[in-house]
């Protein structure tokens, strides 16, 4: 399913990117977010709980998100050999159809949590 998401404040450091289209990454549990404001910008994201089980509940428990909010983490590739990493320090939160990006001041939510080796 493809749907549109609105991030009224944009992403951290990218305040002009406020509209995204979300589509599934075929054959995986991941999704792709494509900017509708900058056609050249897209990111791959995972449900936070897929990377760190219970993360969405932890954020809700700290009062940072509403119960049941959807939490996504952005994926990148780092290292040698290259590996897919997940940015747990800057998760995307989607509540009532609106998105925002948090910045978590907590070393247990690293910027580059290892997801899987990339061949």
């Amino acid at each position, binding site marked *: 399913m493809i749907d549109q998401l609105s991030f009224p404040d944009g*992403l*951290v*450091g*990218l305040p002009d990117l406020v509209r995204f289209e979300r589509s599934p*990454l075929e*054959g*995986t549990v*991941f999704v*792709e977010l494509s900017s509708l404001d900058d056609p050249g*910008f*897209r*990111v*791959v994201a995972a449900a936070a709980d897929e990377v760190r089980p219970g993360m969405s509940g932890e954020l809700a428990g*700290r*009062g*940072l998100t509403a119960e049941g909010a959807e939490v996504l983490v*952005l*994926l*990148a*590739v*780092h290292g040698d050999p*290259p590996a*897919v990493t997940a*940015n747990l*320090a*800057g998760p995307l939160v989607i509540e009532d159809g609106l998105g925002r*990006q*948090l*910045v*978590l*001041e907590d070393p247990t939510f690293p*910027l*580059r949590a290892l997801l*899987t080796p*990339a*061949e």
Partner: protein
Amino acid sequence: MLVLTRRAGQALRIGGSIEVRVVRIEGDRVVLGVVAPREISVVRDELIAEVAAETRTAGDAAGLVRDALRRRA
């Protein structure tokens, strides 16, 4: 910018609900304690810059990530 001088152990308040206290001073480092409502985000400036850089990196690496995840699936 408002500039205030504080000593170790002294604090300042922002509005009615935020307190920033100088816990101790270690050389050129100042250790601060912050008391704020849970809905107020308190983060170091450089962490915001790091998250912004990592978000841009995620955009630059989307193709590599996609390929790696498809191989993994």
